[in-house]
């Protein structure tokens, strides 16, 4: 039974991927990609990785789909140029063979992985009580491999600043992204008023529950960001200009809190990013809260893009 389910899912994922690559227009390709992300989220549930399923659904399919969709709308035309640059059949065949070899080598490598598989599961579980959290993924992200997560949070700040810095000089200081007119009525306005209250609760819930069950800052932050984007595109919320100090502190609050707590570890525990067992959980929750805010802010800004309006 489960084998059948896996087979269906696996074939569907590959099928949607092929369709996404093969379809000629951009718009359906992006729709195909969102479907691909949804199916992958189901695959992750089948693999028992619910945390990843949440991330894939929120970030992989949701947020990535939205920025791709926005990009499609703004990138119209160029068909002749694209056709001219299309590689000939011989090049395509060569590329196909090369990629096939890579795929085949990967398949062989995966099938010959050692049995029983090496695993850190026991070690991860053994030390969880010292951290006061029950979700092993959170333990890995916040403690054992905390440096990865810290650097990754910093990568988001990099991305925001890098995106902003692509703007023309004269736009610096302006509001990021296009400015949408206020939708006073219509379905968009209705949804933008109804959904965010629910979404904000869900987002905070997902971030909060992450300590003990699947969820966490990245997933929760993404949902909060989605609600912010909804209010923004409906014209109900104006993004602050890129010069806004408050906005920038919101983006860096998470990583800074992470570093701050990490440095406290030098004084109160054994080194950077080490938590005293007695207050490990409150500290982790503090970082997670700040990070949720920063992830949400960074994602909204990454979707909005470089400043486009006039200077504030």
């Amino acid at each position, binding site marked *: *039974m*489960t084998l059948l*389910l896996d087979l*269906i*899912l696996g074939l*569907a994922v590959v099928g*949607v991927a092929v*369709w996404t690559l093969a379809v000629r227009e951009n*718009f*359906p390709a992006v*729709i195909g990609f*969102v*479907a691909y992300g*949804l*199916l992958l*989220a*189901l695959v992750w*549930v089948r693999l*028992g990785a*619910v*945390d990843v*399923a*949440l991330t894939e*659904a*929120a970030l992989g*399919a*949701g947020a990535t*789909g*939205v920025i791709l*969709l*926005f990009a*499609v*709308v*703004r990138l119209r035309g160029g068909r002749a140029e694209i056709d001219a640059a299309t590689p000939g059949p011989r090049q395509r065949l060569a590329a196909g063979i090369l990629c096939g070899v890579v795929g085949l080598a990967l398949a062989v490598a995966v099938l010959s992985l050692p049995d029983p598989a090496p695993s850190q599961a026991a070690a991860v579980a053994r030390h969880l009580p010292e951290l006061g959290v029950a979700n092993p993924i959170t333990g890995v992200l916040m403690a054992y491999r905390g440096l990865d997560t810290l650097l990754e949070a910093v990568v988001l700040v990099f991305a925001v600043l890098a995106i902003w810095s692509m703007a023309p000089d004269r736009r610096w200081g302006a509001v990021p992204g*296009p*400015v*949408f*007119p206020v939708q006073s009525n219509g*379905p*968009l306005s209705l*949804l*933008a008023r109804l*959904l965010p209250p*629910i*979404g904000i609760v*869900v987002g905070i819930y*997902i971030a909060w*529950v992450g300590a003990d*069950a*699947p*969820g966490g800052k990245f*997933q929760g932050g993404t*949902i909060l960001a*989605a*609600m912010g*984007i*909804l209010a923004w*595109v409906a014209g109900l919320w104006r993004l602050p200009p890129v010069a806004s100090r408050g906005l920038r502190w919101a983006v860096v609050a998470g990583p800074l809190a992470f570093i701050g707590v990490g440095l406290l570890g030098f004084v109160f525990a054994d080194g950077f990013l080490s938590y005293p067992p007695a207050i490990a959980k409150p500290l982790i929750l503090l970082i997670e809260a700040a990070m949720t805010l920063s992830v949400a802010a960074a994602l909204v800004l990454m979707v909005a893009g470089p400043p*486009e*309006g006039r200077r504030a």
Partner: protein
Amino acid sequence: MAEALLLAAGLILLAALAGLYRALRGPAAADRMMAAQLLCSGGIGALLLVAAATGMAGVVDVALVLALLGAFASVAFVLAARGLSGR
């Protein structure tokens, strides 16, 4: 019981996939958006069944997130279809 629920999940998924195949072919952009929406709904159904069958923690939350973002995706689509009529 669990087996039956998983079977139902598989059937829902198959149905959603069949719809996906039809709807992705278009021809109108709205048809394609329907495809993603359909798969989203099917996914939510399948996830809830899997959650009931296996009792895995957090699977219901995945369905919840899909439901929220599904609504959100249709907004993005409406905007995109209108051409981001911003400025």
